């Protein structure tokens, strides 16, 4: 796997460069940290970039109250010793917003998009690191590494700064903030190979296990105690794993036998379906991600 390692070396060098350049260029950076594989890789890179000092910024988790139970425990363990900010949108909390009664769009907008904006404003953060990758989705392919947002956190694809060579422009005017994506040029498979090579800990939800699920709208949803069953639905135990971890009611599992990292790498390398196929929020109206980004979603 010599050449794969070379690509990982290059990707790592680029990501470390981006992390350092942003930290030097802005006043108050923050790193989004959900406990998913991309943010775990990003945190690992941040530790490398500033070693032997700890990463010079806090971690921020925009919680939706509907993350997988294991992610909360994993998040706290992974962030131990670092400054972790957990934000829950108080309005969404007061209104009891949830994916079942209010739908994926409203749930995502209030908990994630609005919650993120609140947390960034409250912390007066002028740059937020996110683990998004260009291979995830069409509008991500056009995203800059250093992406400027308006004072209202909106993304204007036509007003993005040209990004030449490795010269990132982190200067800000008029309430602008930055979203910075150190993993822009990584693929899902790169992330898994890197996790394997560096021995990065992840929630076991990424590995195949026998789990109770219900099949709903073509997706395998975890039969969580909080999941209201529809008439005719009854959980069945299947050997599944998760390719992405969002809110559990909105994240479909995939049938899989990959219960080790080696097996996951092999499975992802051979996969023919896209990574976000199980994510309900991407299957909203056309150009869904682009619209969400314009509204301030990561």
């Amino acid at each position, binding site marked *: 796997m010599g050449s794969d390692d070379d690509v990982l070396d290059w990707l790592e060098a680029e990501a470390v460069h981006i992390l350092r350049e942003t930290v030097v260029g802005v006043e108050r950076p923050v790193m989004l940290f959900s406990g998913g594989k991309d943010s775990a890789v990003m945190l690992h890179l941040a530790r490398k970039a500033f070693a032997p000092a700890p990463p010079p910024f806090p971690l921020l988790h925009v919680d939706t109250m509907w993350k997988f139970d294991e992610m909360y425990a994993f998040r706290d363990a992974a962030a131990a010793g670092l400054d972790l900010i957990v934000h829950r949108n108080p309005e969404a909390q007061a209104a009891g917003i949830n994916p079942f009664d209010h739908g994926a769009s409203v749930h995502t907008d209030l908990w994630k998009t609005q919650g993120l904006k609140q947390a960034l404003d409250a912390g007066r953060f002028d740059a937020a690191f996110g683990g998004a990758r260009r291979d995830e989705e069409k509008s991500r392919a056009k995203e800059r590494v250093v992406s400027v947002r308006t004072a209202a956190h909106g993304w204007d694809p036509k007003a993005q700064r040209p990004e030449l060579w490795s010269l990132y422009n982190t200067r800000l005017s008029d309430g602008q903030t930055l979203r910075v994506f150190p993993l822009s040029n990584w693929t899902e498979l790169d992330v898994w190979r890197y996790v394997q090579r560096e021995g990065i800990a992840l929630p076991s939800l990424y590995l195949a296990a026998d789990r109770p699920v219900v099949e709903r709208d073509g997706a395998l949803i975890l039969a969580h105690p909080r999941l209201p069953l529809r008439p005719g639905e009854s959980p069945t135990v299947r050997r599944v794993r998760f390719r992405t971890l969002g809110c559990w009611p909105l994240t479909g599992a995939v049938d899989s036998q990959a219960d080790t990292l080696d097996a996951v790498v092999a499975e992802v390398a051979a996969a023919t379906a896209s990574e976000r196929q199980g994510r309900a929020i991407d299957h909203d109206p056309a*150009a869904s991600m682009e619209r969400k980004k314009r509204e301030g979603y990561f």
Partner: protein
Amino acid sequence: MAAPIRLIACGSVDDGKSTLIGRLLHDAGAVPADQLAALGPDPDLSLLVDGLSAEREQGITIDVAYRFFELAGRRVILADAPGHEQYTRNMATAASTADVAVVLVDARKGVLTQTRRHTRILALMGVRRVLLAVNKMDQVGWSHQTFDAVAADYRAFASTLGLDDVTAVPVSALTGAGVLRRDPALSWYEGPTLSQWLVQTPAPAMADGPFRLPVQTVIRHGEHRGFAGRVAQGAIGPGDPVRVLPSGAKALVSAVSGPTPDAHAGQSVSITLDRPLDVSRGDWLISSEYPPDVADQFEAHLVWMSDQPLLPGRVHDLKIGTTTVPARVMEIKHRVDPNSGEALAARTLGLNEIGLITLSLDAPVPFEPYADNRDLGGFILIDRMSSATAGAGMIRFALRRATNIRPQPLSVSRAERAARKGQTPLVLWFTGLSGAGKSTIANLVELRLMEHGLHSTLLDGDNIRGGLNRDLGFTDADRVENIRRVAEVARLMTDAGLIVLVSFISPFRAEREMARALMEPGEFLEIHIDAPLALVEARDVKGLYARARAGRLANFTGIDSPYEAPEAPDLRIDAAALTPEQAADRILDLILNRPG
């Protein structure tokens, strides 16, 4: 390290560019089954690369998209640059990181103006390995003769730009012939397929040459001092001697923290030295031999990327490597027409225009010519108001070595000169529309300063334009230079210890900010003589508004040239509500009561 192959694809939708990229992704196995299935049976592969809804509405590509695939175990990062004329800046952006380019032509049409424009931009941006994909071969009966004619035509053109590593390949993006697979219809063609050519791309040559590390940041942790950055060239290891630029201090490398015990080009590392040295962001660590030049004036090519035209003399932030310094374009030697390559006279550069310029920086920086190292010779210009990336430049050479001009230390200090006059130097900068009362008020203020026994002078716009600035007109570019000169003069006079009253329309915020930045902190007060246009036009003391309205006076501020009012002046005088005497009183209060 074997970096990914970075590829730019140039051409228009009409040439079949989207289809070719879709074909590459599809045949390389980079298209997920669910995305392919969404296109239905007999898929149109061009739809795989269609992007934002804003683009679909307009049927164009507005931005650079980056896509990844693997060929024979090598990672390819493809920058999909749009082919439309108005998006030169996006193509330059995509080309800036590309090692190789695929230029697409339609076999039926051959080399077009657009093909030449794209190729010029590639050459300008330093992409030296080019594949000419002669597409739609199926539409010309797979004609060997047609292919040869197009290829010869292109080669002849490319060699005039110094592009000699050109390979022409016949393809049909529609059928996939010549892309990843050979096709019997092209049995006469013996060269590489597009994918074979890509995979044969040699690694970038940045590993060669003496060691260069622009320092990004200093990592402090207890006693630890790590000088962190990405190695731009060469290699270094523990025990090797290094020098710091610009200080010239020498040390030995103690340790390299990075993926390997030695630091190699392309790696992000952190280096510790064997002795404590003062090193900060923007400095370079270099190998002891072959130091690079350090300079503060350059000749460079510049691609302009802002809606606001480039005005020579205006201050921008220049970012090169890990250094950011104020800089101004001194002169536009000419504009380059990317279609014809012609050099055209120009006083400004508009969006998507390319120029050959000279540039002056406020501080000397180490550099390598762009042709030798793109990371050490490429720079961006940042608008200091909007923070937008306004331009991208490529250094050709230094105009002079900064080491030849050193500030001469003076025996009498500015503080001593001011103390002799018993005052603190100050610039009072009066800005406002023509006829607002700037000169009247400034004259009253100076009379009162005289009464207080203070030493002053008054620089008045009309007077200076009759002497020092009589070579300047009223275009935006000349207005910028007008203010630059008067600000420098005001600065010299504060060095002499004077209170300087500057009465200039000074319509642009950027130049007033430049003037403020030129002075010592606290020695600049911006006074906005604020009169509504209707009022000054009704007064029209000099009859200028009437002439401007009649079209007999061009570029007149407030009529056909903009006035950018100060957002937070130190004092705003409402010229409609106050008499000149009352205004002068207020200004005197401000001067006499200021701290210090």
